[in-house]
């Protein structure tokens, strides 16, 4: 393929930074009904995604730019996850700008909406590229602040405003915790730069460091919806417009987990073993509570909120492993999780356009629209981790990573918890396949985009399980 030398690796990042301005700016030059911003957004996101795929992997330490921007394998793959999430989120959101859904009015200003998603994505990119605490913190904030706005996008929807208010309040507390943690970390190490912090941590610990670590974990615990900081999530997930919920559950979660990965395998790497009990504790309680909470839900988005809380717990398990294994497992799982989750949301979205978003609306789906019911079943089984779907291999790698450093108890606990998870995922499939519909069903209509995306995602969920490309970057890795 064409030559993509080291200094060009920065191009996708720069494009992603400029891109939202172009999308929003394009609105100035065309009228409200114009499709221009939408087309530019599509083209831009996909172009950046394709460009990313040309960056060859297996580059060791990564490449540094202006001392605080690093592009390594993990970063590149995380960028791909974030972009996939952004693209799918954008496609998913498009319908909500054409008509209302789930009892909420139609949304407006798609260009700004996409811009906000792009900013959040850029925030995630900043987190995975950061080499010092300042950039790191900025990235997290850039990733979070657009989310507040996105949650309240539907100005006429009171629940949305309530959710956004709640989200801002909880988010500010989280930020406060993080800043507190960062300041102690700075106090401990005397430097902002990760490599210097790492040297300082390696040379000995002090209570200052432990306080910093605790607060950092608690702070990110809010964003990652860990127990006991998850309480905002069900309300926000339910109050936000459905596409925002989808983006929240993937982009925001991916950013938060990337934050932890960078932290644990970067500056805190020397004490990874010592903080393992904390990670294990948070992971275990989170996945347990998330699974329990999901058991009795009847609203689809609330259900997905608890499901994603539990998924966060599962991902945390992988953090216990050695760096390479853990990073691979997490990246792979995030890919799989993004695809499965969006597939579920697409199906829910189509239902939500015509009915309420509850379990009861799914009844009779298998008779009314079998292919939709099959897609739903595929996504649910994948989230539950049933072989041969991608979710199974994803969970396998997560657990393998956790088990490779000897945390068998936690892994066994997580596996047992999966039984609980399977129970509620199958409940959903049961409503779609077994339960008889009560009375008249409003017909479901699928646009061509929805149909194409659902088919593509279903195939992806099945194929990601055994396609071997993840050891290589998609385009750069193949030797044709």
């Amino acid at each position, binding site marked *: 393929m064409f030559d993509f030398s080291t200094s060009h690796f920065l191009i996708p990042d720069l494009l992603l930074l400029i891109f939202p301005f172009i999308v929003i700016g394009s609105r100035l030059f065309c009228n409200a009904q114009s499709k221009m911003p939408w087309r530019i957004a599509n083209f831009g996101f996909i172009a950046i995604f394709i460009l990313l795929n040309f960056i060859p992997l297996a580059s060791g330490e990564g490449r540094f730019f202006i001392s605080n921007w690093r592009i390594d394998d993990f970063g590149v793959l995380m960028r791909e996850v974030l972009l996939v999430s952004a693209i799918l989120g954008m496609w998913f959101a498009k319908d909500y700008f054409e008509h209302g859904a789930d009892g909420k009015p139609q949304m407006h200003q798609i260009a700004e909406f996409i811009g906000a998603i792009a900013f959040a994505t850029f925030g995630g990119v900043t987190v995975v590229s950061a080499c010092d605490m300042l950039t790191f913190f900025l990235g997290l904030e850039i990733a979070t602040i657009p989310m507040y706005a996105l949650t309240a996008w539907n100005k006429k929807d009171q629940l949305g405003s309530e959710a956004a*208010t*709640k989200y801002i*309040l*909880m988010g500010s*507390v989280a930020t406060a*915790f993080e800043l507190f943690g960062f300041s102690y970390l700075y106090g401990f190490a005397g430097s902002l730069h990760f490599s210097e912090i790492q040297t300082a941590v390696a040379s000995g610990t002090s209570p200052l460091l*432990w*306080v910093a*670590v*605790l*607060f950092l974990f*608690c702070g990110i615990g*809010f964003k990652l919806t860990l*127990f*006991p*900081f998850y*309480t*905002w999530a*069900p*309300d926000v997930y339910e109050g936000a417009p459905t596409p925002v919920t989808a983006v929240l559950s993937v982009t925001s979660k991916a950013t938060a987990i990337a934050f932890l990965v960078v932290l644990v395998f970067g500056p805190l790497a020397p004490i990874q073993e*010592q*903080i393992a*009990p*904390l990670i294990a*504790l948070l992971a275990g309680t989170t996945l347990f*509570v998330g699974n*329990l*909470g*999901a*058991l*009795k*839900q009847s609203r689809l988005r609330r259900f997905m909120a608890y499901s994603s809380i539990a998924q966060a717990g599962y991902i945390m398990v992988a953090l216990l492993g050695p760096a390479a294994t853990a990073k691979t497992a997490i990246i792979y799982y995030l890919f799989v999780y993004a695809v499965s989750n969006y597939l579920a949301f697409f199906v829910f979205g189509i239902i939500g356009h015509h009915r309420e978003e509850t379990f009861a609306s799914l009844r009779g789906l298998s008779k009314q629209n079998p292919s939709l019911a099959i897609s739903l079943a595929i996504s649910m089984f994948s989230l539950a981790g049933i072989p041969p779907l991608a979710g199974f291999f994803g969970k396998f790698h997560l657990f393998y990573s956790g088990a490779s450093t000897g945390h068998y108890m936690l892994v066994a606990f997580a596996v047992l918890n999966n039984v*609980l998870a399977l*129970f509620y995922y199958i409940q959903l499939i049961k409503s779609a396949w077994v339960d008889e519909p009560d009375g008249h069903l409003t017909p479901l209509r699928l646009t061509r985009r929805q149909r194409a995306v659902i088919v593509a995602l279903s195939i992806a969920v099945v194929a990601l399980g055994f396609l*071997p*490309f993840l*050891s*290589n970057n998609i385009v750069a*890795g*193949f030797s*044709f």
Partner: protein
Amino acid sequence: MTNLPLWLIPLFPLLGTILLGTIAVVSSGSKKGAAENIVGGLAVIFPAMSFACVTVLACGMPESGIRETLCNWIDFPLLHVDIGFLFDGLSRIMLLFVTGIGTLIALYSIGYMHGDRGFARFFAYINLFLFSMIVLVLSDNLLLTFFGWEGVGLCSYLLIGFWNKDLKNCKAANKAFIVNRVGDIGFLLGMLCLLSIGGAAVLNYDIFNQFMQMILNGGHLDLVFTLLTLTGVLFFVGCTGKSAQIPLLTWLPDAMAGPTPVSALIHAATMVTSGVYLVARMGKMFCMLPEVLLLIAFVGMFTALWAAITGLFQNDIKKVLAYSTISQLGYMFMAAGVCAFDASIFHVFTHAFFKAALFLGAGAVIHSLAGEQDMRKMGGLLKKTPVTACVMIFAFFAIVGFPGFAGFWSKDLILEKLVSNGPVIAMPFALGGSVNVPVGMILYVVGLATAVITAVYMGRLIIMTFFGEYRGSKESEAHIHEAPAVMLIPMVVLTFGSIFAGYLWADMIGITFFKDSLAAALGGAEAVGESILSVHHVNPVLFAVLGTLAALLGMFIAWRVYANKKIPTPKDSGAPEGSAAAWTFVWDYIHVGFVFPVRVIAWICDVVVDKFLQAFQWTLGAIGEILGDGASTFQVRRVRLQLALSITGVALIVLVALFAEGIVGIPDFVFKLIDSVKSLLGRVI
């Protein structure tokens, strides 16, 4: 031109599968189905392109073969498998006839399947089959071969049950699949055994060969001999499943329930020979294991004889051919059993031509008689369908080993090898002393007898079908017609193959082209085997004469017995009988003996164990629900409370860390906490 990538070969049929599958799915709703011209064209063009690739590659292949790794497939610390391809002398021959005959049969099927509702679906399956078969043959490691192995099994299942409106067909498909699975277990366990001997890397064929050479050179054979023998037996069990040898032969006659081109392609020419291919591919291992070789040779011998005798009593034209296939596969395994891997592959090669021609001819007969398969209702078709009759008669000469035809060269070669390579084994008597048993001679005599029987039952088929008077009803006689050109062309091409394919290795007139082309791939194994088996050279002309005499004798017997005999009017239906194939009943009953205990265990599991488990599950489930209620009530809607809760959480974690003297101490602290709670409870109670 030789820099064509190898992955192009499987890519074309795969594309064909996807394309035709899409067409089949999309057109399933419409009344008329997809246009047959387009579908048929697509169905032929993909295998043809694949064949073209193989041909180009075959011409420019270096002696040592071409190796190519496409990408990584499985990457664990314990198991690293690449998707890689190996194109050497052995896979070249296999690929040439798999793709070549596959193309011809796809072409033939356009005529045969004309007007069928599942036209596109059929060709999607055929392309999928070719893809799997190519992967099986082209792969450079056992695991990928297994992938293809399973793939062809699946396609076989799909195609046997192609007309799934009829329950009999479905049962036959099920039987084929299940019996094959029994063999697959052998394959899988064999791979595990191999892994335990040599580690995961041995799954790659190149490393496998080096490893076996290392064992042999280093004299380490004693160390691994038992395990290696077990491996060999297990792999051979896998081969008996796929290649329909005793005891897993019952599925092949039933498999004739599928459309005839399928029988020709899968159940005669290609898939069923994959067992022979695997034995040849792993020849480096088998040649060191005399006991396993003996087992292979004798299983092959008994299968050949048994199937030939059974073939005498069949009335369904396709079943005769099915048993004949089993019998010929028996010959191939006999050859493999005396380390003559090249001879067995040569027979695979020639057999592919004449058996495909026979099946396609039978298909043309069935087509012209509007679906009639019972030979008792045929007869006198020579005048009505002359081209088909000529094809069948030429292929008949090939299979009985008439001098000059393909079967003559390959079958006589096998018989010759049986004598020259056959081991002599000292058999101890119960009372003491021992006698030398010339195993080679036994194999040869039985092989020769089988050749006579082959000529008899094949003669019977030809006589009952093409000579004498037509025995069907009058109104059906009027409709008899020659097959369309699209069916005749592949038949004629295959007929040329079944006449001339044998001249690639005609020892007597000094042509050893075939042997030389395989020498790089198989020569090593054979050299080892021959050194163990103590080969003595024999005069090939003698065997040729004896083989010819056997064929002539068989044809004479067939002529005397069947030409003037009054054929009884059929009482039973000649249609495929689903799960109960006539004359294999012994093996079917033996299978039932294995199935019955499994059913008993299944019943116990269903009735007893299940109830206990269910009770246990309900209890657990109830606990889970109660806990779930608890977790839901924990969720409050007020921000104040939520924040308070979270901050309490932080405080708790900090406190725990404080009390436990750092995060490291948390587990200890938790245990201590539990202990103190326990003691507290103990005091209270």
